[in-house]
């Protein structure tokens, strides 16, 4: 594991997955993992496999759903998409994350 890459917080990964699905539409696990890596410019120490427990967690809450499909190059894969609850949840999650980020930012600013 890369020393200078940061570990991903649990809730963070969830939100990343939700956001990815929101912008990209239905996507399989590999696609989601790649997208997150690309967006974060490979600064996250994301073992691609860790995406799957996160996907399971979101599925169990009913925020995303999955079904088997075929990729453009004719490979069978499981596609994940946002559910109705998930769509609603994104705003809530985003808001709470922004609140945390803002708080942290204030701390960082004040200690400077």
């Amino acid at each position, binding site marked *: 594991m890369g020393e200078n890459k940061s570990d991903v917080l649990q809730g963070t990964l969830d939100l990343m997955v939700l956001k990815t699905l929101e912008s990209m539409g239905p996507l*399989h*696990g*590999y*696609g989601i*993992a*790649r997208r997150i890596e690309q967006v974060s410019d490979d600064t996250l120490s994301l*073992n*691609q*496999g*860790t995406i*799957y*427990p996160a996907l*399971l*967690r979101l*599925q*169990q*809450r*009913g925020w995303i759903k999955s079904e088997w499909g075929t*990729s453009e*190059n004719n*490979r*069978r*894969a*499981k596609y994940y998409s946002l559910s109705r609850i998930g769509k609603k949840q994104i705003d809530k999650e985003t808001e709470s994350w922004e609140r945390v980020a803002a708080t942290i930012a204030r701390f960082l600013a004040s200690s400077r």
Partner: protein
Amino acid sequence: MDWLRTLLSRCKAFLIRNKLDQELEEEFRSHLEFATEENRRRGMPEDDARQAAMRAFGGMTQIQERYRLRRGLPLLDTIAQDVRFAARQIRRAPGFAAVAIITLALGIGANTAVFTLTHALLLRTLPVRDPGELVRLAIDVSATETDGRNAPLNLPIIEAIEKRSRSFHGIFAWCVYDFPFKDGTVNSGIHGAIVSGNAFESLGVRPAAGRLLTPADDQPGGGPDGLAAVISHRIWVERYHADPSVIGRHITVTDHGATIVGVAPAGFEGVIVAEHPDIYLPIEFQAVLYGQPTKHDGGRLWLETFARLNPSVSRAQAAAEMNTLFPSILDATVPPALRHLPVIEKARFEVKPARTGWSKLRAQYTEPLLLLQIMVAAVLLICCANLSGLFLARASARRQEFAIREALGAGRLRLMAQLFVECLMLALPGALLGVWLAWMAGPWILHMLGNAEAEQAISMRPNLAVLSVTVACAVLCALLFGMAPAWTASHTSVDAALRNSHPRASTGGSGLRNFFVPFQVALSLTLVVVASLLGTTIARLLTEDSGYRTDNVVFILTDFLRVPEKGEALVALYHRMAARMEEFPGVDEASVAAQPPLMGGRWTDDFVAAENAQYARPAEAMENIIAAQYFSTLGISILSGRDLQNNDSDRNSCILSRAAARLYFPGVSALGKTLRNVIHHRDTGVATFHDYQIVGIAQDTKYDSLRESPPPIVYLPITSGEGWMTNAGATLFFIIHARSTAAANLAYLATLHEMAPSSPEIPPIEFSQSFRDSVARERLLSVMSGFFALLGLLLSCIGIYGLVAWNVARRTSEIGLRMALGATRMRVFALVMRQVIGLLAIGVLTGGIAAFFAARAIRGYLFEIRPGDPVIFALSALLLSFVGLLAATLPAHRAISIDPTQALKTE
């Protein structure tokens, strides 16, 4: 909501986990293929592309494991795994499993059986509103501090309490009755109760159909529906098929028309335990049957009375209040003729909790049931010790298995949990089988109560409370007998066990095993001693000379409340009827008495020799009121003088038992002397008296119980007109000695129909039966304790056998070596037995001490045997040692037939 959705999803995933596992694998595979393809497109060679893809993915197995932990129900998975594993273990050793299950079934079955009875008789909370508020009001008339006899109340007393006491509300009365019952073509007897109008209201029960009785029903002339009747849920279902149209139906109860107004709720069996009324009528029915005076008779105690405590009044406060009110309540309600009888003077008022209702059986059976409960608990402990021993032996045979599993990463807790599951899988079928055994044994145990009504009314069907106790029992057992092996197993040193390839060479747990045998032996010895003492007691009681003839003698209660004859005419009727019965073929003698012997009834009175009345203090004697022929009917010889005669000249005559003669006239002949019955009026200090001429001295007999030596008894004639005879003489007993019970019954029925046709037929009681039933409690105790002792003995034998067999197996090579080096068979035998003898000795010694204390604890139940009887102790110890040694001999014999060359070769 999220957690709920997650849980549901987990449950679903748990059910289809195999399919999901496949899908996950496929998903991972497709992930890797996507990644490989992309890498390849970037120009990596095939092998590198795949490697890089796998690197980027991370640890596949860890991810899978994390995924699974999150997906299904991992705890259930583990348990399911353990169960499957345990099932395999059990299948591999079916004999072991069978022994374990049967052992447990016996132990748990015994516990369940006794607990079912305890629960039914003592513990079941009444299905009513706020049962904790209920109290039973009664009059304590015990002769001694401990005998706990109490009497019910009557309406005048209840009304006085309602008026004066501030402690209670919802006071209601209850009296169990058997009625002749007619409904259309159905004509049968029915078990019923007459209850106060407010009884159901006070209990707070709701009808299953129609309505329950109300105070409006309990009025002279009946209520809105005439004579209202409520039927039990049981007969509603059994007889009327739960038909709601039963409401309003006309029935006939003891020749009186009544209307069914409602059905009591299911499961409601009244407040008297072991009696289940199938019909409830208002107390007014007493007046309908026997006239208003009997309903309000202050001289008769016949109504079981219950009440609710007022809020913020404690039971002690209520009792204190009642104690101050009681004398004045007695003054106001008891007829002057009875007010100053010693029994009334000594009576105290009692307020007892009635959360579980009340039963007259309780006074008799509470302690014996507790005693049996302790004994079955001991049996269960022996079972557990046995199984613990067996499991330890197996655990040591499985040491390698445990070591390998531990080496592969199983935690100690995991190992222990797995063993526990294994134990539980033996304990639960054992418990199930035990419940079945208890159910089967139920009727047999009930029969030993010696109470026909209770036998019918008590359900031995295991209910929820009993089953939960049984299951708790099984879990506790599994913990108990699984603990030791689990502990040793989890403390196996991995490398030592693996290096030591010979499973038999291990010694783990042998220290513990050595503890179990003395423990079992000690418990069994205690059980055997207790059972022997109780067995001796019942044998002595049954062969005890009571002084009575019991064969072919019947007692028949009379119910002459409705015959027109009263007072002297009634007494004459009794005389005539007894004489008429004697005319029938096969009837030898017939007589009348107020108290049939050995039925537990007890009348006492104070007497003094008239000639000494100036200075001697009156002394108490038992009393009975009889007609002529009483002595010849019961085979009691008249030692001197003559029998009483059924005529007026004997109105003031009496007969004394020899003990009574000796008590009142020591050293002189009592015949012809005068005996004075002294009645003290404690409040006024005045004593009145009544003199009787002694015309005969009868042989001594027991009176109300086989246990006591013959007390002094004074026999007075029914012609003496004792105004205080029960119900003014309307309920006495005919005593008939005939060729057979049938002949006696025939004579009675014919005479009854001829001379007192208005009186109900009452089934006769065979003296030989009531004689045996008078020791029903001792019989129950001795039979059950004997059975438990036998069980304990058997289990201990299995335990000893198991220990020795295991030791021999463990030491096969050692013994082979010894024999190869020249040890004789005798020496080998001695070697094996020495250990057993040591353990037996410790067990017998500690068991002897335990038995000594146990025997002292039950001394109250013993009869003509001292709790420390040396013969019983010696015989029990001998029996146990003998059986123990016998159990050890079998495997020891195997030790001496070990072939040294064979034994050493296997090393």
